């Protein structure tokens, strides 16, 4: 692994453009062709519009226009009780849904000062890592597809389907499961999960080897990714990058290691760091992270097997739904159930910020409560929004074909960008 640059003497370049301005001294304005890249373009991963000034094949100017997928999640959540609000964050970053759900639930728990059982902590970690694999596989499949490596898509989606099968087994649905609850998990882990998850954790490193076998010696892939879309460590920090973007630029930073949450201190895994900050290094970071995630999943399953029979949700009847079977026999449980679902529970006044490492970087939730049953303000820190701001810096002087590779490597999920 190449030597990593540490943040000593980090220089904040200013101004570091989020818009690439057309320089009239370098380009003859008569030669400039302005095109709309998107908003409906298959390689924009959703609805991103880039206004690109082209000088021949070179990108001379670039401006990103976002907001096409703005759905007002934050406004809607202010009018829903906390219990109902959990379904919304999953739809923000629809590829790493468990991470968004987790960060919102953790923010509520922090305000409530609610402890979760150990089993819930480990299962949350296990599913977060499975979700990271899922998200990276979608990224790998679609990004490779855009650069012309079509077969990669089928291989990546083959394993992705196995991950979704696991989600289905545990939660009943393949995506947007609402499995994490305030206080723990919605249901106990089904017995078949352990063996299937272990099988996937064993299989995944081999699958990643296969992917690399397809791409790493592919001349076209290398030509189109190496040295393309450069982002230095200083620029990456100044532009607020996180996650794979930051680690591909040589900054050894992962919230799971630097500011551990859940039980990440107790598991053994490596954080991949690459130094050149190009599209190829971002690809390598994603590949290594899938291996690391598979390793964590294996360790989680081992721990979860030891925790068989333990409770999976906190025993606090004021915020946690009572067990289903009690509803038929206990009047008190029925009242609790009714109250939580209709009125919600009260969350003490205060403001917290909770951040976790999602598949795209720091996924944060700033939650303000006025002591009522509905959040006063929910703000999601979207890693994709920061990543997309780096587009203009990454494509300076690039060819228009590279723009596709760069935009893909930033891994933006437009739902996350626009919220």
């Amino acid at each position: 692994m190449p030597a990593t640059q540490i943040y000593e003497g980090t220089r904040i370049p200013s101004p570091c453009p989020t818009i690439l301005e057309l320089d009239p001294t370098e380009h003859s304005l008569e030669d400039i062709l302005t095109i709309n890249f998107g908003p409906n373009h298959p390689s924009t991963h959703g609805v991103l519009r880039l206004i690109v000034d082209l000088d021949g094949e070179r990108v001379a100017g670039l401006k990103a226009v976002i907001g096409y997928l703005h759905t007002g999640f934050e406004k809607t959540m202010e009018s829903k009780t906390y219990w109902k609000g959990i379904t919304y964050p999953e739809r923000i970053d629809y590829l790493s849904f468990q991470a968004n759900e987790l960060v919102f639930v953790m923010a509520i728990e922090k305000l409530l000062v609610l402890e979760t059982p150990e089993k819930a902590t480990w299962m949350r970690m296990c599913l977060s890592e499975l979700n990271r694999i899922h998200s990276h596989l979608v990224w790998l499949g679609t990004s490779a597809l855009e650069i012309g490596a079509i077969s990669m898509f089928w291989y990546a989606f083959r394993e992705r389907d196995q991950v979704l099968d696991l989600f289905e087994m545990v939660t009943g649905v393949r995506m947007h499961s609402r499995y994490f609850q305030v206080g723990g998990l919605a249901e106990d882990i089904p017995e078949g999960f352990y063996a299937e998850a272990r099988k996937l954790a064993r299989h995944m490193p081999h699958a990643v080897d296969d992917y690399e076998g397809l791409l790493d010696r592919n001349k076209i892939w290398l030509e189109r990714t190496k040295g393309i879309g450069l982002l230095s460590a200083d620029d990456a920090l100044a532009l607020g990058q996180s996650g794979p973007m930051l680690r591909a630029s040589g900054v050894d930073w992962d919230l799971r290691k630097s500011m551990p949450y859940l039980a990440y201190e107790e598991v053994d895994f490596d954080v991949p760091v690459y130094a050149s900050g190009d599209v190829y290094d971002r690809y390598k970071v994603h590949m290594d992270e899938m291996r690391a995630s598979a390793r964590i999943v294996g360790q989680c399953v081992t721990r979860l097997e030891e925790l068989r029979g333990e409770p999976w949700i906190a025993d606090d009847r004021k915020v946690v739904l009572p067990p289903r079977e009690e509803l038929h026999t206990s009047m008190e449980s029925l009242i609790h159930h009714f109250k939580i679902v209709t009125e919600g529970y009260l969350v003490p006044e205060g403001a917290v910020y909770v951040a976790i490492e999602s598949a795209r970087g720091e996924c944060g939730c700033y939650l303000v409560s006025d002591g009522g049953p509905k959040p006063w303000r929910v703000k999601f820190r979207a890693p994709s929004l920061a990543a997309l701001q780096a587009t203009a810096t990454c494509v300076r002087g690039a060819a228009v074909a590279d723009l596709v590779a760069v935009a893909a490597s930033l891994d933006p999920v437009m739902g996350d960008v626009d919220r």
Partner: protein
Amino acid sequence: MSGATGVPGVVETVEAHGETTLVVDPARVVEACTHLRDVEGYNVLVDLSGVDYLGWGSKEVAGYIGTPAGRDLNAAGSQGFGRVPEAKPKRFAVVYHLLRVSDEPGRMRVEAWLAEGEEIDSVVSVWPVADWNEREAYDLYGIVFRGHPNLVRILMPEDWEGHPLRKDYPLGGEPVRFSGEM
């Protein structure tokens, strides 16, 4: 998290939930941020957001259950949290979440309070990433950031009226068009 000392413009330091909040004078926010970046080492601006506290503590806005005429939460409640929340100094807050990416990681929250129509200096010159975040706060709350290079709407359409995340902007405020009206 450790509290920073000697930050210019600090009005109050609040410690809660293991998080440190520096309330700064909005006129000196750039000075305070530059100090935090260069001296305290908070090299990344993780997030910047606006918050609207209009109607904070009154039951009509967010504190009611069911309908506006429903149960008053500020009366002593059955669950023990029935108290009026502490009053806020002004209507809007601009909240900056800072992160120290180094071997001694740390987080810090900076808060600046603004009355309606009051402006605040942009921190784009301190952290370039503030660009889109400030545009978002402008778009959704109408907070004006002085010195921002390109302060236009970002999430809502350019010709949108109003600022949707304000508390006085109603849910369902968007007019619904029917095909017969065209």
